């Protein structure tokens, strides 16, 4: 923990020691709770212990990192080494949806769900080769800063701010919702109260220290979330296959699943219409939608401002590139494990079904169904599996029901897979608490990054650059904090009544970011001929086309274009965006020599940044 350091120099020189101690301390804490559980500590207190202690540590780091320096507040003083920025990006990136929801989607969708795994990793290749090093050289505080300098003026900045706020806000609502769901389950609080408790945790991390505080809490949160994600599945793999490497052993699970699938179909335990074979592609998405979804997620990754701004914090362009590689490595550790979760859970469930267990005996054979049925995450015969009597009654109402559990009787909510694995594996409750702490870390860290991106766009781009360019640093930093609080409260308020599926919300945010930001950003660096008029019209056109397609097809029964689902709506925006920028740039006057020189300087790592850190632009 960062408690023993005074100056940031001492802290930065001892990162390995500090986070090593922190990791050791966390393991010790888990062991302590494990012992306490064996000695009879009630489950409720284990849940409280995990949630409150981890939040307290994050808050402590947040308070210790408080700052009144704008360079530290906006870009962590540009001192974060590649390795640690990679970890921070990892937890910034991996949200409640990745941590809790992704394994569940893979369980339900099999091969077709892998579009998310591919899309959310491959995008980093685009970040590294096309964008991050150049933005680092540019020396901006926010992504809209780049648009304003490159495309000369307020309009490009304003459009970038709009896109940033729309996509980040949709995304942050989903995170706060995730925080609330976890706090609800492990603290037994009403959801609406839990949302505000989660919000308190988020604000404690980011209010006082901005990017500097968020960076160092995100590193701490990454450590918790990766330990929490790997532990249950590693133990499960060792128990079932005698080898603690789940990423390797789940191959055997996949082949067993294939055999069980055939058996269920032959024995009438599954309906050929509803059973999706796990390893067989294109049963849920046709190839066109599968590949376009991958494309939108990848390009969206390379356009999300809360991710791009993490690469502003490295000490150099070289470190920025290395840092993208580390980011992907740390993200990869979780994403290549998620399919193992899905396979192990599926093997367990299919084995249960193949054993032809009578509905009346489910309580004894698979008690975990009822643990999560209580929260509405497991349904049997259409009824919540909260009590044995209610599902017996529900199955009794189905015509010709054989009285034993069939594949089509059991419906698992995606969120139940990761949460229930410890119990399926017969692990003590302390591991369940650990998983909850990990999910919370994932949701909090992403929410922090997103809120900061939104608040910084409002305070730096809108207030400072557009409304009051002469305001002193202290005023700007106070405004930044007030806006952070306001945005956070609005987001939490939305989360208390926002119903839709998290994964849809998140996919939309990616498509919107891809359509609005990517073409102008990439061409801004890679094509000197891109003009202001082209960029402005291209951004607006791409964003509007994508937004229109989502709204029209989701709510107004608008017919699909070429059968492309609105999850991949960014495809149209990308095409329109690139085409518009090209076309208009060719007919408008070329960018001035000053702009072309600026692009040259952006491309070369050596030399001073284009924008100086104290806020005054010097390039023009």
């Amino acid at each position, binding site marked *: 923990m960062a408690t023993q350091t005074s100056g940031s120099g001492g802290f930065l020189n001892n990162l390995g020691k500090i986070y090593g101690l922190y990791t050791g301390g966390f393991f010790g804490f888990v062991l302590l709770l494990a012992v306490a559980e064996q000695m009879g500590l009630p489950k409720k207190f284990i849940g409280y212990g995990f949630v409150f202690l981890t939040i307290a540590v994050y808050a402590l780091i947040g308070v210790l990192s408080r700052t009144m320096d704008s360079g530290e507040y906006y870009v962590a003083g540009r001192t974060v080494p590649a390795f640690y920025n990679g970890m921070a990006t990892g937890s910034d990136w991996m949200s409640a949806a990745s941590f809790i929801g992704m394994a569940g989607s893979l369980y339900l969708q099999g*091969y077709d769900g*892998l579009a998310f*795994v*591919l899309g959310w*990793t*491959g995008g*980093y*290749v*685009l970040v*590294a*080769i*096309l964008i991050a*090093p150049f933005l680092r050289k540019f020396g901006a505080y926010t992504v809209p800063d780049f648009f304003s300098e490159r495309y000369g003026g307020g309009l490009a900045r304003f459009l970038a701010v709009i896109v940033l706020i729309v996509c980040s806000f949709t995304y942050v609502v989903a995170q706060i919702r995730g925080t609330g769901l976890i706090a609800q389950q492990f603290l037994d609080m009403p959801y609406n109260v839990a949302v505000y408790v989660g919000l308190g945790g988020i604000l404690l991390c980011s209010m006082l220290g901005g990017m500097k505080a968020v960076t160092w809490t995100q590193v701490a949160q990454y450590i918790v979330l990766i330990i929490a994600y790997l532990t249950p599945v590693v133990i499960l793999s060792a128990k079932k296959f005698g080898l603690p490497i789940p*990423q*390797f052993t*789940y*191959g*055997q*699970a*996949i*082949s067993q699943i294939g055999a069980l699938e055939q058996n269920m179909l032959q024995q009438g335990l599954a309906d050929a219409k509803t059973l999706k074979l796990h*390893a*067989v*592609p294109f049963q849920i998405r046709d*190839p066109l939608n599968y*590949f376009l979804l*991958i*494309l939108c997620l*990848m390009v969206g990754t390379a356009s999300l401002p809360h991710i791009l701004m993490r690469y502003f914090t490295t000490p*150099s*362009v*070289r470190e920025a*590139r*290395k840092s*993208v*590689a580390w980011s*992907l*490595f740390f993200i*990869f550790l979780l*994403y*290549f494990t998620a*399919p193992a979760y899905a396979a192990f859970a599926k093997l367990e469930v299919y084995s249960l079904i193949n054993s032809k267990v009578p509905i009346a005996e489910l309580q004894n054979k698979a008690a975990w169904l009822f643990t999560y049925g209580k929260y509405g995450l497991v349904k049997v015969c259409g009824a919540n599996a909260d009590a044995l009597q209610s599902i017996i009654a529900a199955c009794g109402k189905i015509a010709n029901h054989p009285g034993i559990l069939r594949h089509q009787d059991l419906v698992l909510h995606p969120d139940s897979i990761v949460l229930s694995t410890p119990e399926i594996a017969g692990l003590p409750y302390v591991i369940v608490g650990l998983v909850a702490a990990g999910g919370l870390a994932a949701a909090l860290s992403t929410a922090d990054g997103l809120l900061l991106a939104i608040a910084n766009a409002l305070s730096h781009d809108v207030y400072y650059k557009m409304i009051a360019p002469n305001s002193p640093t202290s005023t700007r930093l106070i405004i930044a904090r007030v806006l952070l609080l306001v945005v956070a409260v609005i987001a939490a308020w939305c989360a208390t009544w926002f119903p839709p599926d998290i994964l849809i919300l998140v996919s939309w945010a990616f498509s919107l970011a891809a359509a609005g930001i990517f073409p102008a950003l990439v061409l801004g660096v890679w094509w000197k001929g891109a003009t202001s008029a082209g960029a402005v019209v291209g951004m607006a056109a791409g964003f509007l086309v994508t937004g229109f397609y989502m709204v029209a097809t989701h709510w107004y029964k608008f017919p699909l274009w070429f059968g492309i689902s609105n999850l991949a709506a960014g495809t149209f925006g990308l095409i329109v965006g690139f085409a518009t920028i090209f076309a208009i740039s060719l007919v408008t006057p070329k960018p001035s020599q000053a702009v072309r020189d600026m692009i*040259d300087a952006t*491309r*070369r*790592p*050596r*030399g001073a940044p284009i924008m100086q850190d104290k806020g005054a632009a010097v390039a023009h």
Partner: protein
Amino acid sequence: MAQGTPDRYWSRTSTLMWIMLVLWFFFSFGVHFFVNDLNKFTMFGFPVGFYMAAQGSLIAFVVMLFLFASRQDTIDREEGVAEDN
């Protein structure tokens, strides 16, 4: 400022970018076009097409990025545009 070689620096950088982009396309899309053919083979229990989407391409992305960072750094140094330190 190293005004002598900016064109060569940028053309080498661009070439590297295009190579990476082709590899990116191959591991993101190309190899998965053949998932049904690859699934006819099995490796450690994994159908190979499934394996590529669940792990193979991911490993390739990670390796690619470390190689990219070191290759680009070499280009920076050779063309005299690397940062000091």
